[in-house]
């Protein structure tokens, strides 16, 4: 099995560098959400073709772990599925100067409600209350009236429903549960990255785990980053009077109609998502994944790297690379412009 190295990089990597190559050099280290890992692999690889002397390392230690490491000075930037709390932002001033740290969206991901039921081969329509009842374990069979109500001309099997949720704390869970709690009247569990302990259900680790388990289990339903659900069927969610299927555009629209989080750095771009949106065509179960940068870095090299990498990620090129490699939804031009501006505020400490 030994022999020549077989990495594409080793075979010569002249193809990728069509954008102007950057001058920056050195190593930028970051850590955080594991959901970004696939995209990050593509970005770090793509970035080397833009900035051949630069390297980006990313440890998928989880969003919390990433913020922890970032605040502890271990990472230059963090990837996170959830925005920093105000306390965290306060403590970020210790390493990031008086303006502290700020978020830029790195991608927006619709969270799909996906299922695997023999006999249902198309998209299912549901409203927030029904989804909440299913996930709360109150609806236990696929031919339940509440489901049938929304899908009048569909033949529903009587397969029992197996709810599959994330076993680990996760941003996906947090956003999904947040949606259930705000958009439905049925869900009254605490909103956090942890699945409510009171509900007995199947679970698995990470997005790949829930998707895998759902694919193996007849009657299973789960929620997962839409880019990773494979061939599972999904639910179109009732928004206002229509049923909206997930799509990058629908997700972007939901973000666009949300307000920004107040009270942190002036260039902060974290969002308070509006789950109850009635806007036509918006898909409300979205997750915004952020990159968190310092407003002020101690060294020029790091600052340059951070800006260059941040810009690359947001660039059309970067977003396209991630979409191709990891299936992420690219961000809208509007968001990009705002984010680019935020990045330009990065300075070096005196």
């Amino acid at each position: 099995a030994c022999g020549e190295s077989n990495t594409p990089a080793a075979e010569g990597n002249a193809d990728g560098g069509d954008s102007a190559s950057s001058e920056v050099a050195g190593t930028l280290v970051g850590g955080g959400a594991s959901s970004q890992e696939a995209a990050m692999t593509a970005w770090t690889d793509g970035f080397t073709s833009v900035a051949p002397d630069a390297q980006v390392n990313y440890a998928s230690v989880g969003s919390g772990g990433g913020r922890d490491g970032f605040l502890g000075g271990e990472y230059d930037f963090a990837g996170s599925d959830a925005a920093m709390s105000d306390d965290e932002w306060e403590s970020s001033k210790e390493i990031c100067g008086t303006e502290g740290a700020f978020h830029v969206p790195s991608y927006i991901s619709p969270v799909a409600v996906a299922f695997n039921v023999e006999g249902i081969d198309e998209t299912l329509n549901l409203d927030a209350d029904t989804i909440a009842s299913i996930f709360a374990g109150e609806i236990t069979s696929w031919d339940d009236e509440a489901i049938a109500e929304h899908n009048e001309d569909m033949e529903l099997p009587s397969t029992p429903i197996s709810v599959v949720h994330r076993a680990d704390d996760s941003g996906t869970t947090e956003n999904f549960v947040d949606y259930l709690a705000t958009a439905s009247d049925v869900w009254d569990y605490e909103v956090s990255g942890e699945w409510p302990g009171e509900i007995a259900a199947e679970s698995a680790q990470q997005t790949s785990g829930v998707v895998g388990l759902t694919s193996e289990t007849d009657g299973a339903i789960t929620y997962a980053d839409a880019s990773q659900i494979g061939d599972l069927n999904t639910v179109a969610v009732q928004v206002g009077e229509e049923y909206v299927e997930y799509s990058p555009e629908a997700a972007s629209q939901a973000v666009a109609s949300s307000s920004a989080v107040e009270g942190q750095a002036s260039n902060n771009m974290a969002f308070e998502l509006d789950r109850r949106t009635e806007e036509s065509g918006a898909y409300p179960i979205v997750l915004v994944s952020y990159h968190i940068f310092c407003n002020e870095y101690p060294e020029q090299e790091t600052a340059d790297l951070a800006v260059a990498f941040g810009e690359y990620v947001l660039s059309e090129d970067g977003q396209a690379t991630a979409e191709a490699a990891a299936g992420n939804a690219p961000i809208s031009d509007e968001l990009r412009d705002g984010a680019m501006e935020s990045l330009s505020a990065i300075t070096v400490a005196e």
Partner: protein
Amino acid sequence: MSSSLTQSDKRGVAGDRVFSALTVSAGVIILLTLIFVVLFLAANSRDAVYQEEQGGWIVGAFFDYAYPLVIGTLIASLIALVLAAPVAVGVALYISHFAPPRWSKSIGYVIDLLAAIPSVVYGAWGMSFLGPELIPVYNWLHENLGFIPFFAGDPSQTGRTIFTAGIVLGVMILPIITSVCREIFIQTPKLHEEAALALGATRWEMIKMSVFPFARAGIISGIMLGLGRALGETMAVALVLSPGMLTASLISNGNSTIPAEIALGFPEAPPGSERQAQLIAIGLVLFVITLLVNMTARWIVSRHKEFSGAN
């Protein structure tokens, strides 16, 4: 020949001093490291039991959070131990006293292979192979022995239960126990084995008479090491288990263990939050459990100290 007793060779004495100092300092290093680990845990878990906003001490809340995990951990480890310990001792005996001498080394080696398999792989094996295989077993247990609370709940349709986790843990700790026991069994003095045989003991009686008493402390140590591994195993359990709330049933989903909870929750726990503190605090609780278990084991061993096999 030196002429005086007190004017002994300086280098020799120094050698002894240095060596014993080295051993003591190794011990002290361990001691200090551990004290630091404990301090680290204690310092970082304060927020789990004390919150200004919630009116000071919240031990009760923490207890409510921790006890299902403690019980889950104990159940999984107990299953692992009950399954693995007898088999492991049996395998160790097989290697030391039953297998053809020419083969015994290689057989021991094969069993050691089990220890070489990384826990991630055990986890993957447990969730993708063992769990599904066990679904019919769980269904059967539920149908036929459902009156026992352990088999009462709805059997899991994915096989990801605490029982599966216990089995995987059992497989993981088996080589640990086997390896420790085997080495001690082999050391049983021939003299004592022969003494038993000459009294007309069968092989099993000889083992009961001379091997087991000789290896008592070692067997217990091996079991404790295995138990420690079972109590502290993170990845395999996190992968195999479908964690959830505590249930009496071993064959439905639910239940969790402390290390799995930490592994699953820690990556996303916000820095400096109560959640983070909580996760570290249950780590500390696990320490206490391990300690209690080990103290019991030590106590059992120490009661027979003067009957040591080394004499």
